[in-house]
């Protein structure tokens, strides 16, 4: 039986939800319906929409926003925050090591060939020094609660994690719809995130640059996360640029302005490694900037997140993260990994093949809920098909037990019903490491579904960290 965030198993309201539950009980259901409609029109008017893979260009959908917040008590957050900082610190140390001395490989903690054969390892980054030794400036760590309420890290997103704009817009919508709630519940603010992000980006400017020019590099208006790119650029007051707006001359990056070229010092890029420089990576990329990697390697510009962070958040590296924390920090991990079977290991493979109907099998390089098998929900045929894919190349897969994810009351057609959740806090690393109290809570809207991705019919909730 999955844990319910709001209710104890005997149906009493948990203490940190009490103020909210009293307010909810006093709220006429007709008024809630009105508020739901109002929320819908707020998001539509603001154009907070995303494009869906495989649908016609220009199709825009709203991500469903649920009115019941996910609430986290103070002490729980303090502990989570400690674990998140520890984890991201260790992962940055790992990246620094992998792209320099590689002590962790020599110590035999991680098999060297697993790193070098991984496409996410970028040899171009070897022995390049990046400002403050930070690689993953923005990390979006996915957490779930299972069983009796233990937190697990599901994924470390260290490349171009998105979703933070929903965290901010959800809060804004909640405050607008239910101002009285915020007077009664002491919810920690998250609105200063763009400020922290700007500070973080400024702190990692190339050495000697005092007043850095920062830009946000987007693939353009048809990208599914374009709304977020524009939102963050506007909130930080930096230019939102596309590849065509930048050029490199003599290893210096410039943007094209109405008053001629202007030098750029820090690029917050929302484009994958493969596309940022057609001269270095995919030659067919129209999104990138030719020569950018040369300028970057010469230290004339900084890129956030760094090139090559994928080696640290890859699903093949994930099982080693607890070891990574012990190796670099000499500490026990605060946050647990989900127990993971690494199918390149013969024992794990044998176990997984024998228990496919109980396991979640993930492709090491998959993302967004595509290309995975959820054993307990799959048909016999789907399991057999997947078995063939696994045996033909086991090293491409990992397997994990299906977790009974925690749930939270959520508005659905039939009224209020429990739906499964995850949580993505955003960790910023620059001259120091910070995060706002909260994150993006995603909710699987289909009954029993464990997939929270917006591309697969997930919604979002406001996330409250209580201040006392």
């Amino acid at each position: 039986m999955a844990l319910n965030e709001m209710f104890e198993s005997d149906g009493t309201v948990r203490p940190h939800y009490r103020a909210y539950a009293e307010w909810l009980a006093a709220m006429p259901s007709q008024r809630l319906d009105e508020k739901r409609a109002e929320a819908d029109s707020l998001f539509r008017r603001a154009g907070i929409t995303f494009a869906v893979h495989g649908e016609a260009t220009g199709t825009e959908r709203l991500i469903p926003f649920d009115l019941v917040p996910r609430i986290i008590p103070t002490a729980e957050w303090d502990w989570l925050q400690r674990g998140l900082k520890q984890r991201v610190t260790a992962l940055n140390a790992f990246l620094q090591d992998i792209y320099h001395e590689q002590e962790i490989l020599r110590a035999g903690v991680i098999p060297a060939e697993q790193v070098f054969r991984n496409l996410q390892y970028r040899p171009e980054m070897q022995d390049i020094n990046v400002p403050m030794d930070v690689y993953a400036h923005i990390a979006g760590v996915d957490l779930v609660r299972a069983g009796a309420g233990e937190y697990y890290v599901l994924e470390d997103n260290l490349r171009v994690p998105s979703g933070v704009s929903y965290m901010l817009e959800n809060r804004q919508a909640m405050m607008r719809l239910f101002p009285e709630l915020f007077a009664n519940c002491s919810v920690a603010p998250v609105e200063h995130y763009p400020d922290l992000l700007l500070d973080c980006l400024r702190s990692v400017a190339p050495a000697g640059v005092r007043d850095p020019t920062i830009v946000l590099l987007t693939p353009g208006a048809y990208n599914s996360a374009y709304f977020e790119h524009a939102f963050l650029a506007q909130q930080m007051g930096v230019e939102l640029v596309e590849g065509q707006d930048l050029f490199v001359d003599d290893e210096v990056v410039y943007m094209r302005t109405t008053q001629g070229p202007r030098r750029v010092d820090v690029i917050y890029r929302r484009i994958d490694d493969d596309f940022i420089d057609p001269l270095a990576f995919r030659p067919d990329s129209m999104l990138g900037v030719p020569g950018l990697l040369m300028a970057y390697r010469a230290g004339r510009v900084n890129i956030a997140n760094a090139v090559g962070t994928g080696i640290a958040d890859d699903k093949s590296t994930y099982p080693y993260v607890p070891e990574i924390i012990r190796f670099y920090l000499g500490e026990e991990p605060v946050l647990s990994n989900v127990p993971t079977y690494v199918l390149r290991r013969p024992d794990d493979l044998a176990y997984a093949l024998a228990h496919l109907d109980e396991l979640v099998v993930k492709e090491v390089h998959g993302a967004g809920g595509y290309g995975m098998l959820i054993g307990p929900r799959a048909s016999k045929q789907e399991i057999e098909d997947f078995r063939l894919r696994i045996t033909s190349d086991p090293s491409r897969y990992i397997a994990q037990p299906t977790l009974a994810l925690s749930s939270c009351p959520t508005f659905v057609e039939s009224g209020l019903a429990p739906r499964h959740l995850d949580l993505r806090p955003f960790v910023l690393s620059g001259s120091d490491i910070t995060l706002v109290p909260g994150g993006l809570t995603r909710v699987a809207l289909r009954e029993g579904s464990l997939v929270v991705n917006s591309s697969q019919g997930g919604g979002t909730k406001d996330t409250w960290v209580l201040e006392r």
Partner: protein
Amino acid sequence: MLSRTADHLYWMARYTERAENLARMLDVNCRMTLLRQDEDAVRRRWTAMLSTVGQLEPFLAAHGDVSEPAAIQWISFEGSNPGSIQQCFDSARENARAVRGSISTETWETLNTTWLEVRRFRNHPLAAEVSGEFFEWVKFRSHLARGVLGGTMLHDDALKFTQLGAYLERADNTARILDAHLEMLAHQTIKFDDVGDYYDWGALLRSVSAFAIYRKVYRDRITPRRVAELLILHEPMPRSLRHCMSAVQHTLEELANTRSVETQRRAGEVDAMLRYGRIEDVLAQGPRSYLHEFLARTADLGSRIANDFLVSEAT
């Protein structure tokens, strides 16, 4: 600012202004046909309007004959007409979306809401009796966009590029509205100094919100000569060619860069032509020939502005 950003802002404003002026033209035509049911006159009016917006041929190809409801529908919503009101709002919103980071939230929400709501009107064909509501709505969405820009954006280059686009578009549109009116009357000889047909010329004035202005400025009956003077040369009249080009010239001076010297000179030349021109000379040259020359000059300025500011410099 980024050249690409300037380009999007400039076109965002141009398309919004264009939508407004289309609504103005449609509005005046509808009012006229409500007054007079002479079928020939009605057809002539709508033919002239379709030709002004460059859509006569595609329209005839699709409909065979000109009728009022079809013409209104075509100019308001037709998807294959890149200059329909709905397409203008689509383009304005697409441009705004591309530079969302550089415009105020209010500006974005205004254009996005316009884009969402225009669909509401599309689905029931506009009869002349209900179309007025739509045209009013279009005009007010444009007023709102202009006010929101001025009231919420930093008054820097970004705002100036929207003003540059809006004034250039308005100058062009006023010239076309006047030209279309003259074209419609081409079958008769216009006596410019005599009192003109009250309804014809009054409707033209209303289409550019200038009926009350005319009364205020001239305190006399309506003559075609004065209407032309008001729309072409009268500086305080906010939709006159003179007023718009003075704003274009002024804005260009503020935006000047190393490449724009010749463009500024040409804008100054147009400004001087209007500033020191006399209506006698306009009429002597022939008002339509004068307007065509003017339209050629604004088109030239448009492409020069694109080259100097909006297209990225070669690396």
